[in-house]
């Protein structure tokens, strides 16, 4: 099913900037792709790999040591024996169980809704003709330029007025404004959904909504999955707004709970690292499993960006 739908039909307009699928096959024809990397390239890549992973590995090392060991030189380079004890204490101390549940709810609802709304809007912008389409699309792109930080004060007033502080909808609702998703789905549907299929469904008498349900959603599924993961990650890691409206002892998200761990005048560093590790692990796991798809999605969304 997925395989048949992801492949854009051969008669779709050829787009030179299209990629993602079939990258492996056509790579040799790409710029620079015909050249094999020399040893220097591999050395640089190795350095970047170490640089990317070292802070994460060291988080685990620090979490497995006790606090006294972290206050000595040289710093530890290998795991100690306390990892699971520390993880358990951090889990309980920082209220991480509830934080995980809250964050999963927030990120899940937010990602699901954004994907749904972005797909129908992206479809309209990519494939339907209507007055003001280009102007509206420009507005969508324009909204990406407005930093969310500029809106937090009235949003905070709204939350106060509605008595929503420490309630998850206060975090979910503002996060649903997402121009990137609309743009991303539009770019994908432009090339992945041939007009002929839509026309054929129309001829069969399908309403627009039926076209969305039976043609667009199946065709967009791979992009929807990638967008869903990207939005989940973004929502999971969102900091400023949850930090303002959720409190550590109320109903924190993981990031709010982590920020609380760092405070205090004699913070237990290894406990903080254990918390940071716990808060990061779920996403690292997602990236380890779906990394290839996420990379493909980011690269696909980037073209023509």
């Amino acid at each position, binding site marked *: 099913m997925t395989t048949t739908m992801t492949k854009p039909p051969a008669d779709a307009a050829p787009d030179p900037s299209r990629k993602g699928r079939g990258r492996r096959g056509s790579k040799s024809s790409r*710029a620079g792709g015909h050249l094999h990397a020399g040893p220097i390239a591999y050395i*640089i890549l190795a350095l970047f790999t170490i640089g*990317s992973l070292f802070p994460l590995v060291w988080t685990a090392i620090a979490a497995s040591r006790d606090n006294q060991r972290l206050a000595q030189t040289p710093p530890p380079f290998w795991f100690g024996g306390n990892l699971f004890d520390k993880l358990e204490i951090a889990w309980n101390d920082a209220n991480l169980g509830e934080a995980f549940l809250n964050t999963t709810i927030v990120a899940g609802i937010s990602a699901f809704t954004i994907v749904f709304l972005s797909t129908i809007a992206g479809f309209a912008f990519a494939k339907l003709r209507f007055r003001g389409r280009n102007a509206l699309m420009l507005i969508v792109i324009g909204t990406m*330029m407005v*930093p969310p930080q500029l809106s937090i004060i009235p949003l905070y007033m709204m939350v106060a007025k509605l008595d929503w502080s420490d309630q998850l909808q206060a975090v979910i609702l503002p996060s649903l404004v997402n121009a990137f998703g609309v743009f991303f789905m539009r770019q994908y549907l432009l090339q992945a959904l041939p007009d002929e299929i839509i026309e*054929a469904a129309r001829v*069969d*008498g399908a309403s627009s909504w039926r076209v969305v349900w039976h043609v667009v959603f199946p065709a967009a599924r791979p992009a929807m999955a990638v967008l869903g993961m990207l939005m989940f990650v973004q929502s999971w890691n969102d900091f400023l707004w949850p930090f303002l409206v959720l409190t550590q002892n109320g109903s924190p998200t993981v990031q709010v709970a982590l*920020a609380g761990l760092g405070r205090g005048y004699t913070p237990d560093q290894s406990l903080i690292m254990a918390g940071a590790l716990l808060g990061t692990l779920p996403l690292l796991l997602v990236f380890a499993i779906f990394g290839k798809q996420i990379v493909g999605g980011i690269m696909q969304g980037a073209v023509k960006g």
Partner: protein
Amino acid sequence: MTTRHDTAASPVKGGAAPGRPPGGRGAAEADRKRAKLSRRWQRDIRWSPYAFVSPFFLLFVAFGLFPLIYTGWASLHTVELTAPTDMKWTGLDNYTRIFDDDFFWNAAKNTLWIGIISTVPQLLMAMGLAHILNYKLRASTFYRVVMLAPYATSIAAASLVFVLLFGRDYGMINWVLDLVGLDKIDWQNGSWASKFAVSSIVIWRWTGYNALIYLAAMQAIPQDLYESAALDGASRWRQFIHVTLPSLRPTILFTVVVSTIGASQVFGEPLLFDANKGASGGSQHQFQTLGLYLYEQGWVNQHLGRASAIAWAMFLILIVIGILNAVISRRLRASS
């Protein structure tokens, strides 16, 4: 699904009319039915695109545009955090207040410097990295996923780890400096050292992501451009300068705009870099950004009106930067 595709594949000519009239009935009834279907059809074609895009715009108006404008309104009032709905008109007082405040200009300067220190090396490294990733590589997917691991790490988690790595007495980085015979650096209290340390968190999290974006753009460059350049005897370096970079210009502009907006928003990294100083951004405010200053005025000093004025000042600064950006890129385009 497959069957739908099969029917879709068969070409239907002159098929603008929806709803096939049922055969074998009275012509008048069929006509009526067709007319009714056709009206509904017209309505559907005409209005459903708006229905599909409207949720985005409704949400944007409610949670983006309205708050943005209301921030401007609130910036002309005295509003206390403890009673956010109780607003007293003060005119431009909030603006004169913050423009007279040295900490505002300090925060603006810090934001600018942290923005430059974090964005410029980040994008240069991302470009180099993308160039390498564009070679034929063994395990190329592995590198791409690994580069994205920092992006999966939250600001909070990354900042907490970097605080430890940058620790003055027992931090890994000072230990290495000591090892190679250099002086230890007080990363939290040094004016430039702290800006560099805060920027390094941003650089670490975003370099790989930007590299992937550049890589995507590089792979979209048609190969024959390189071939003809090679025929003209251009070296690989000259090919990079004269083929790769010009083709990447829109992408570079895009990443610069996104990074600039991101840099103007830096908040979590400096907040957590010295968790006990919190919103002041270090003992001397040495790494207090505008985002942090806004938070300090609004939520620590509890002046939401003043915080709104800061938000609008930031907005105006961004617009000026945006215009500058557009002018510069137009100049560049005209000159080439």
